[in-house]
């Protein structure tokens, strides 16, 4: 594996180097991130990411609150896909406690998680366009994302941090008319994907900027623990919803889009981007099936005591969020508070490989590569 020799060979550099700080306040760092970039002219010779500006001691917090109270904190980790984070935590807790949740809860969870995946991919696609200088796709994405946020507002009153999926169920049932509104949204949204393709995906300049740029080979991606659309962009057909189905994902028909190198090399920025576009279609497919199959009547809570006390033991459970494998390592000592709760964030590992794939490219490419990795700093810093 070529990954073991990643130290910088300084003798290979000719020109005079300049240290450039991209961030902590910079339009394209997607949060408060600082990249210390060593540049030779426009060419980047080394990137050192500095993170932690948004560190909020998530794991320490969790040790001081009860298991139910952790959920609002998980919202704030990946604030773009809060539902999926709630979902991941609920799945981990249910595995630890051995709870079976009602059929209806599974469907509700899948519906909101997939809707939130669409919303999160909207942000990823839009800001990636923004990073390579296309302003309009960003607003198109936000126009459609707005509808999902409206749906969530109808569902749970919040537009960003939902606290909707609870351990053993969801906080409350769908409101009246919600299912019809979701159908309406899906009918509205499906043709819009073509609009993104026309505007951005197959734009010549966009392809020039992203194809062959920032190639992440599959073995390097796996070694770095890169997951989700970034891993699939490298041509690895790996999706926890399919490969290690949790909840009821094994009941649905959908494909796993992977990067094919259609415009350049497998694993370039364009592939990572296009995987997200295709995942929008897949998410629509899953949502439709879940809506069709959802039992209309039933309880939305498993029978649980008021205070959750999981048995002694530990669990490592992972779910597929829009950014990749979200893992929860929970150790319980039988008390109502977690003894140890570790969140394995997909964006954390995705960012850690930036030096590997962006070195040798230009400053403009570093921004594009960073955008294609779709990081959320709230999750990286926790």
């Amino acid at each position, binding site marked *: 594996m070529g990954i073991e020799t990643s130290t910088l060979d300084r003798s290979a550099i000719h020109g005079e180097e300049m240290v450039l700080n991209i961030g902590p306040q910079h339009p394209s760092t997607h949060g408060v991130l600082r990249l210390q970039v060593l540049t030779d002219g426009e060419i980047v010779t080394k990137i050192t990411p500095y993170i932690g500006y948004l560190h909020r001691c998530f794991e320490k917090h969790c040790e001081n609150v009860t298991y139910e109270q952790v959920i609002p904190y998980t919202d704030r980790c990946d604030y773009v896909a809060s539902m999926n984070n709630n979902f991941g935590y609920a799945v981990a807790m249910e595995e630890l406690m051995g709870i079976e949740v009602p059929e209806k809860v599974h469907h509700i969870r899948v519906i909101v998680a997939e809707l939130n995946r669409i919303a999160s991919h909207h942000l990823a696609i839009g800001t990636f366009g923004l990073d390579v200088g296309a302003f*309009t796709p960003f607003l198109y994405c936000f126009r459609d994302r707005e509808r999902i946020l409206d749906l969530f507002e109808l569902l749970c009153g919040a537009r960003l941090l939902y606290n909707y999926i609870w351990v053993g169920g969801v906080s409350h049932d769908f409101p009246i008319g919600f299912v019809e509104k979701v159908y309406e949204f899906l009918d509205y949204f499906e043709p819009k994907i073509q609009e993104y393709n026309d505007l951005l995906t197959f734009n010549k*300049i966009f392809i*020039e900027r992203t194809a062959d740029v920032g190639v992440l080979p599959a073995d390097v991606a796996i070694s770095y623990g890169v997951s989700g659309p970034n891993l699939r962009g490298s041509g690895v057909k790996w999706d926890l919803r399919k490969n290690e189905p949790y909840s009821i994902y094994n009941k649905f028909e959908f494909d796993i889009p992977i990067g094919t190198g259609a415009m350049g090399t497998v694993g370039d920025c364009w592939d990572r981007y296009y995987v997200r576009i295709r995942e929008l279609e897949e998410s629509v497919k899953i949502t439709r099936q879940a809506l069709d199959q959802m039992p209309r009547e039933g309880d939305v809570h498993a029978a649980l005591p008021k205070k959750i006390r999981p048995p002694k033991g530990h669990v490592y459970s992972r779910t597929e969020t829009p950014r990749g494998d979200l893992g929860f390592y929970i150790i319980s000592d039988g008390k109502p508070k977690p003894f140890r709760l570790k969140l394995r964030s997909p964006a954390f590992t995705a960012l850690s490989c930036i030096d590997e794939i962006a070195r040798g490219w230009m400053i*403009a490419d570093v921004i594009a590569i960073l955008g294609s990795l779709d990081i959320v700093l709230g999750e990286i810093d926790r």
Partner: protein
Amino acid sequence: MELLLQKFSEVSFLSGIPSALLFVFAATLIAVSLFMFVAVNAIVAVYAERKISAFMQDRLGPMGQGVGLHAGKWGLLQTVADAIKLLIKEDIIPSLADRKLFILAPFILFIGAFIVFVGIPFNQHILVADFNIGVFYIIAMSSIGVIGIILAGYGSNNKWALYGAMRSAAQIISYEIPLALSLLTVIMLVGSLKMQDIIIAQHGLIWGILPNWFIFNNPFTFIAFFIFFISGVAEVNRTPFDLPEAESELVAGFHTEYSGMRWAFFFLAEYANMFIVAAMSAILFLGGWQSPIPGYMDSPAWGLFWFMGKAIFLIFVMMWFRWTFPRLRTDQLMQMCWKYFLPISFINILGVGLWDLWLN
């Protein structure tokens, strides 16, 4: 200018004033009116850009109901309000910046744009000075602006600004070559550098139906128009060539550290330059103030209308570019210039020469 002086000398109550004073007065008057034009152009263009971008992005843009604290009907007063805000904004000069250069830079950039307006004919009569070297004068004067950009980048003492300035200088100098070469095709056909000569040469019809504009004159000038216009867009640093101020990479490029009125001067210069590129394309290739139907609607008033109409349309095209295209990368930008535009421009010159030799 001469026309104005002549008019002055005809007015009886000015006859006692020495001619030198009159000359200065006339020059000031022209300068002020040109400045007004540039300022109004920027205000209208900013409003148009906002509205156009808004409609392209499926949103409304600046809006307001009635007059009051709102931005006027349809947000019409938005840019006026912005201009007032910029005027009264605190003037910040970074403590480590090179004060003199920092202050000087926006003015040099602006002067480079402003001085060009002297040579642009708005219609048959409105033209400050019809130089013998008209086109060449405009090319020469627009090259002053680069210095302003470099100084802004250097004087800010900011790495982003420096990168922006270096990109900008490289870009402007490179694209000046295909720009000038495509302009040469027109000059070869006209045989004069005078602006009015160039426009008058485009009078009449060609191929029976089309107006005799140079864009329709022959296939080579047709290509030359596009090279000229695209290079012009690159010259004024607009998307997809806005690398010097690429907000996602370089924060704001060479004007990162500027705010308030100084920043407004950069903006004035940008919109003035946009107008210049649009106007020059209209004059050289689209017949300037000539009516599209030769012989009809070609009074001076109509001339102004046609000229402004063509220029505004081309400005709209630039805005259209900006809100639909992503941005190129530095090396791709240079590659486009040196590997595609430059050879095509040379072929164009050869082609126009041969075309002119054999067919006319």
